């Protein structure tokens, strides 16, 4: 597993060359920029950190921006850098959350703010331990896939934290995430779990849990939005990545899931997800 090497904070000088790739939020705001530096890649998260990645090397250097939150740096490394490295090295990592159910793991993918972590927390609260909150690391196991557990923490906004803790603690609401450690009421699965199905979260327009199985081609189109590559100009690797995603789309059931974004509805949604996962069990 790659190791993060933190250096002293320094200002992010303006870079002369344009990025060869960028991430932007659904609202069009810049999230990260990829710059090539010889055989290394500089990945800049504006006002947060510069990560220097040498493909194939097990160390990632980080220069935090002044006043950057150290916890945010660690989260970026675990949830944004590691998936790039996993995919670059021939593995498979998706952006999303997952829980272990009696019928196999269920994973949740979707656009930002669609409720992936909240739903994982709701499932955990109903007795289905969470495996990961942001990085779905998959390992091929025979003819199926396993979800590899990540950190035993859920990072959620204040109102979701209150819901998951069953008590109101007044975390500063909607703008900043808080980290909830796993506990008896919010269990974590420490062992890999066979992946039963991947649920693609919709926009929240349904009045109750609405589940619609997806065709493999639809699934592939969807999952390509949630699996990021380190070097989009490395065509051999992009091709291999596409092959792995295609295999995933064929081997694993994908289900479109929409539901009202109402905390009171989440137990029913969790129950519907688990019941649906049971229908795929072989």
């Amino acid at each position, binding site marked *: 597993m790659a190791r993060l090497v933190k250096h002293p904070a320094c200002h992010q000088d303006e870079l002369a060359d344009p990025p060869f790739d960028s991430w932007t939020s659904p609202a069009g705001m810049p999230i990260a920029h990829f710059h090539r530096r010889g055989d290394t890649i500089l990945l800049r998260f504006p006002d947060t950190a510069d990560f220097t990645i040498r493909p194939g090397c097990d160390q990632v250097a980080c220069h935090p921006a002044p006043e950057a939150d150290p916890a945010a740096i660690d989260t970026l490394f675990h949830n944004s850098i590691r998936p790039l490295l996993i995919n670059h090295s021939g593995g498979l990592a998706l952006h999303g959350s997952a829980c272990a159910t009696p019928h196999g793991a269920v994973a949740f993918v979707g656009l930002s703010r669609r409720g992936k972590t909240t739903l994982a927390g709701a499932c955990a609260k109903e007795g289905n331990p969470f495996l990961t909150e942001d990085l779905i690391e998959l390992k091929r196991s025979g003819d199926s896939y396993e979800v590899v557990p990540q950190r035993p923490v859920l990072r959620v906004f204040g109102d979701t934290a209150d819901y998951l803790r069953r008590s109101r603690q007044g975390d500063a609401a909607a703008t900043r995430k808080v980290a909830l450690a796993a506990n008896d009421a919010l269990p974590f699965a420490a062992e890999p779990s066979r992946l039963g199905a991947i649920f693609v979260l919709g926009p929240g327009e349904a009045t109750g849990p609405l589940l619609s199985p997806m065709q493999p081609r639809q699934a592939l*189109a969807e999952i390509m939005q949630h699996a990021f590559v380190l070097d*989009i100009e490395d065509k051999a690797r*992009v*091709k291999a990545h*596409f092959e792995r995603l*295609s295999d995933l789309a064929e081997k694993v059931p994908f289900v479109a899931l929409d539901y009202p974004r109402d905390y009171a509805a989440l137990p029913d949604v969790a129950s519907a997800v688990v019941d649906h996962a049971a229908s795929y069990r072989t």
Partner: protein
Amino acid sequence: MTPDQRIERADDIVAREVGGETVLLDLEAGAYFGLNAVGGRVWELLEDGPQSLAELCDALEQEFAVERATLEADVAALAADLQANGLARVAAD
């Protein structure tokens, strides 16, 4: 395109059959495309090199129960679509 003009696959396109359908990934643009059964078969036929629309129709006529005129219109539309999306191009003579 005229029926005698030949088209060929563009470079850097990856094809994969997924769930019985053909999907294409343009490695240069990062764009993804899906093809129906006829489109998938056309893509297969182009694997052997440039083909004219007439040659494609000749081959497809043996495999699909479609009238020739419909087939020609469908193949012409597909060829235009593939070219518009950078997936295929008119072959040099």
